[in-house]
């Protein structure tokens, strides 16, 4: 790799819903190692995620992300509940959601897809594999696929 990857959607943001600061930092590090400039926004629980996506206080100026990376093991409102809420909301259900979790449990996987997660990724324990995962996710979701029009134009939400 000779330098930063040019992104056709340079301002598309990714929202990471993850309560563990160590895992958040690892995701940032992996993005750096993969030489990706994708802006990563982080919220640390499910209720914050919903507030962020609805531009509710304190996230009045939040931009709608083009992709949501959602952990399952979150305090208070777990990943599946967040998923249910998002996919039931006509304003939010079109935003792609990738589950990103340590769990490899079949029931967690089945339930995630049943609740219309777009994909399910088990967090690798080896750093290089994490770099590979973020590279692939970025490549697929932000370069290969076409995002819904309102997300790819990176409009501001709310007022």
């Amino acid at each position: 790799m000779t330098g930063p990857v040019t992104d056709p959607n340079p301002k598309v943001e990714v929202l990471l819903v993850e309560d563990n600061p160590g895992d958040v930092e690892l995701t940032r590090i992996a993005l750096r190692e993969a030489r990706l400039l994708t802006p990563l926004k982080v919220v640390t629980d499910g209720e914050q995620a919903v507030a962020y996506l609805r531009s509710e206080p304190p996230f009045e100026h939040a931009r709608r992300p083009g992709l949501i990376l959602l952990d399952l093991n979150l305090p208070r409102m777990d990943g599946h509940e967040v998923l249910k809420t998002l996919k039931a909301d006509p304003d939010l259900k079109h935003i792609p959601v990738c589950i990103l979790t340590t769990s490899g449990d079949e029931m967690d996987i089945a339930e995630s897809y049943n609740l219309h997660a777009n994909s399910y990724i088990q967090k690798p324990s080896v750093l290089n594999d994490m770099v590979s995962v973020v590279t692939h996710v970025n490549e697929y979701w932000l370069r290969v696929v076409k995002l819904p029009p309102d997300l790819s134009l990176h409009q501001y939400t709310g007022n």
Partner: protein
Amino acid sequence: MVSSYCELLGRRYQARLDDEADQFIRFAVDGAQRMQLLIKDLLAFSRVGSRGQPLEATDADHALELALSNLQAALAEDDARITTGALPMVLADKLQLMQLFQNLIANAIKYRRERPPEIHVSAVPRGSYWVFAVADNGIGIDPRFADGIFEIFKRLHTRDQYPGTGIGLAICKRIVERHGGEIWLDCEYRGGSRFCFTLRAAR
């Protein structure tokens, strides 16, 4: 996560670390990976009860097929040959029966001798039960340990010799007991190991 951070420490401070520190990091990474496997297996052990489905008439042959399909890679890698007798209909949770076969056969492959593993699965009737057997031509087990091996965390080898968490057979025992059966090592068997377990016949 732990192993990733150990790796990062190693990379970031490489110039300032001596050989001993490198070794500490390797041990830490190894420990983290082992913990992860342990957690995964402990969860499986605990879920035998909490995730168990009601017992119903189950084709043991089909459960075995599912197990073998999950073990395809290991079977091919070790050039293992499986033979089976006709297997009956039993009262069982199909997924747990699959897990039971899977754990026993995975062990038979793992604890092999130099020659390719040969594994035979069979069942004979005994009253309202069937007695299943999974026999192999592997390294065998000292009869002294016939009871202990079913206890959680009990291993007979170091991790350098054979990988494993010491939970596989404990899971097997838990599954069999949930099904109202028994599991034991056939101590008369020579030339490898032979595990037997009973399951109720399906009416």
